[in-house]
């Protein structure tokens, strides 16, 4: 405490000239700043690590469950009881990304927390004073986290694939990466998480409140589909049809291996979810640019 400089000494002035010669804010620098921000909050790093562990774990669990199901089905006595259970063989190919729903929950919440906590703690004022044009700061944060979400999702699915094979092998259910749609499934597990991250962070940016943002995100991703499927479906014929365009349904289609009749294809699903994410992103950018911080 006692050791405090009062006036800049010549050394500082020299450093000043060196520093002042560099140009100012550019997008790469803002990206680097946002990368530092994401990686220097211990709880964020812990959350991300747990997400990977849980997603890979769920893939293993699901692989094991599938083998058990198959054993039951091959036993004539038990087969009657598991009637209506999905055909095990058609499920194995989606095992790598079976942690996707859980991943969406964690990544969506974390995306909200990352931006809303800036408002909560006052950090946003430092951010916006350093990058007063505002939009680059938000875009950089979105991009950094979307990339993290993609790598995390695709990586977990990839790891999930390899973890699942030895579990499936005894039941002769092991499958190759070249099986139809498997690679796309793995990659899109990452894409869905990246798009959900953008969607959730945009909601967090609009609401500027962690609790409100998390509730809204979970509501949109997990509650609205249930409401639509149960309560609202009876009201009008077009409602179940429109439900295909909800972000959650679009995400499901992106990682699907077989496409049911009338359902969106992987590509259409990607378009719909991207539409949701981009629309919310654009609104959040416009609002943030206009509103006081």
């Amino acid at each position: 405490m006692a050791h405090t400089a009062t006036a800049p000494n010549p050394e500082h002035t020299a450093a000043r000239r060196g520093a002042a010669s560099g140009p100012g804010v550019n997008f790469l620098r803002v990206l680097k700043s946002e990368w530092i921000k994401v990686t220097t909050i211990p709880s964020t790093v812990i959350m991300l690590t747990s997400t990977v562990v849980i997603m890979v774990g769920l893939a293993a669990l699901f692989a094991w469950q599938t083998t058990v199901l198959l054993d039951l089905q091959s036993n004539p006595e038990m087969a009657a009881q598991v009637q209506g259970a999905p055909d095990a063989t058609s499920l194995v190919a989606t095992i790598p990304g079976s942690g996707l729903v859980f991943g969406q929950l964690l990544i969506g919440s974390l995306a909200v927390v990352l931006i809303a906590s800036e408002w909560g703690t006052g950090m946003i004022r430092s951010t916006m004073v350093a990058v007063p044009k505002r939009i680059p700061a938000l875009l950089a944060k979105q991009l950094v986290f979307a990339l993290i979400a993609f790598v995390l999702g695709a990586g977990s699915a990839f790891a999930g694939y390899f973890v699942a094979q030895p579990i499936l092998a005894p039941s002769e259910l092991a499958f190759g990466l070249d099986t139809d749609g498997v690679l796309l499934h793995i990659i899109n597990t990452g894409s869905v998480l990246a798009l959900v991250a953008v969607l959730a962070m945009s909601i967090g940016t609009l609401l500027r409140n962690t609790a409100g943002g998390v509730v809204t995100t979970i509501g949109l991703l997990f509650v609205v589909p249930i409401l639509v499927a149960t309560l609202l479906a009876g009201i009008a014929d077009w409602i179940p049809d429109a439900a295909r365009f909800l972000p959650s349904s679009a995400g499901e289609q992106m990682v699907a291996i077989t496409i049911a009749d009338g359902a969106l294809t992987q590509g259409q699903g990607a378009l719909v979810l991207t539409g949701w994410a981009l629309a919310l992103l654009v609104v959040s950018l416009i609002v943030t640019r206009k509103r006081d911080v």
Partner: protein
Amino acid sequence: MIEAVDLSKRYGAKTAVDGISFTVKPGRVTGFLGPNGAGKSTTMRMIVGLDNPSGGDVRVNGKHYAQHSAPLREVGALLDAKAVHTKRSAYNHLRAMAATHGIPNSRVREVIEMTGLGPVAKKRVGGFSLGMGQRLGIACALLGDPHTVILDEPVNGLDPEGVQWVRHLAKGLAAEGRTVFLSSHLMSEMALTADHLIVIGRGRIIADAPISEILDGHGQSRTRVRTDNPAELVRALAADGVTSQQLEPELLEITGADSRRIAEAALAGRILVYELTPLQASLEDAYMQLTTDEVEYHSHTLPQSPAGTGAEEGR
């Protein structure tokens, strides 16, 4: 250089800043003084583009803040303590801020040294005291070695050593030719630090003048006199503009006559005087005089309410 022209900010029906114009010039410390809620912080937030003005315009070094390509190198601002994520360490916070402008880590370590944050730099900001938070805010403001420094209530929560440090820092920066704009509601602090004062009350500028002028114009010089015969001395001094106030049986405070005139009067009247102290008009007096009508939140003595009496009795 900060130039505000007809700057105003309304929040719904409430006007926080009401068409103020002022210029903050380089090379001196300009104090921004006003009671709580007078519009100081709102004005500073508009300067750095956090709030959009409802009307008028404010420029820093000739441009709107957001138009600068390297804003942190133009303006360093401490807006409120702890505009920092509580779970991040001070060092990482500064590193993230510096990264936006390509400011090297060596400069980060330098400002940590300058502000005395060294021992706590790797600790979570959430655990910082108010004073440490202020030091971090100041470190952040100095990061880009800016030409203009804006500090909102910088001495808030600082220990006496820290207060003195901020005072020297502000004066040092001004002496290097930088623009230093410092807000406070503490008049005494301003009197010691600022060269020029902008006084604001209820969103309007009340005074914009060198500090000496404000002192001369609004505070009258008083003299404290101890004498064994106050009544006689007051009679001897009786003249236009001389007023006196008897504080204690032998203690007077005389306004309107300087100490020499009082001494002469005492000598002529053969009155014993054993203290004669000129009291400098305090900025506080001048300030109170300036802002009495402009204070947003007056403190009132609570009337003795029946409920209060009841509570007394209940004890």
